[in-house]
């Protein structure tokens, strides 16, 4: 498939979609949405890229190895953040009691480690969706 109009439009739209995904992830603790929704939007943007430009080009900008590291790393970050609480004498996954700063409600830098968790989930979900999609259409002559 070689459609220049489609490719140009996708190239124009893609940054905005990804920016929106990042916005949703980072504002997860003060507005609706969060790691999963934002990660899904990020994953959708990657899938959109894969659908328009084909398997090879997606592989070039988002190699399988990076994806594997992002997947495992995102989830590991979550577990390690949880263990962080145990080290500081509080409970597993504890937030403020483990020494994370509370901040002012309503601002970006608030909610203790929730933003960090959201980033971890976002990375994991976005890369996982992309991996699943490319596993599904693998080897397809596009």
């Amino acid at each position: 498939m070689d459609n220049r109009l489609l490719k140009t439009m996708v190239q124009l739209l893609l940054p905005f979609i990804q920016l929106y995904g990042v916005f949703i992830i980072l504002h997860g603790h003060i507005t609706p949405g969060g790691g999963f929704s934002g990660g899904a939007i990020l994953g959708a943007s990657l899938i959109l890229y894969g659908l328009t430009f084909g398997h090879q080009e997606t592989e070039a900008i988002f190699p399988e190895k990076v994806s594997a590291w992002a997947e495992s790393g995102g989830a590991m970050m979550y577990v390690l953040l949880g263990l962080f609480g145990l080290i500081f004498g509080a409970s597993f996954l504890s937030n403020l009691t483990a020494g994370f700063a509370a901040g002012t409600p309503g601002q970006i830098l608030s909610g203790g480690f929730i933003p960090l968790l959201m980033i971890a989930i976002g990375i994991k979900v976005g890369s996982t969706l992309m991996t699943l999609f490319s596993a599904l259409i693998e080897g397809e002559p596009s």
Partner: protein
Amino acid sequence: MNAFELFVANIHFLGAVIIFVIGLYMVIAHPNLMKRIIGINVMSSAVFYFFVAIGNISGGEVPIVNPEALTPASFINPLPSALILTGIVISVSITVYALALMIKIYQAYGTLNQDEIAELMKKEADL
């Protein structure tokens, strides 16, 4: 409370149960694998809908802290929403996994009809 008001008050629960039944019928009665996967999705959506409807109270507010007005009238229960997010994650992963299996099955047997696949499998077992 007259009948119409009762109907309106419980409309979400009714809708959820009806959709649940439609989804169940879709899973059980259709031999097509794709239809069954969609049916599973419809069913789980119905349960999520039911769950969200439990958490809602009329006139409640979205449970997000608003810095300007820190004393809200009443928040709705945020727990069901959090649970449903988990549920949606699970349902997506099940769907994608089932679709991956479906592709493999189609490559192996050349059909998506479960009855035909069962016949083919029986023939293979007899050989």
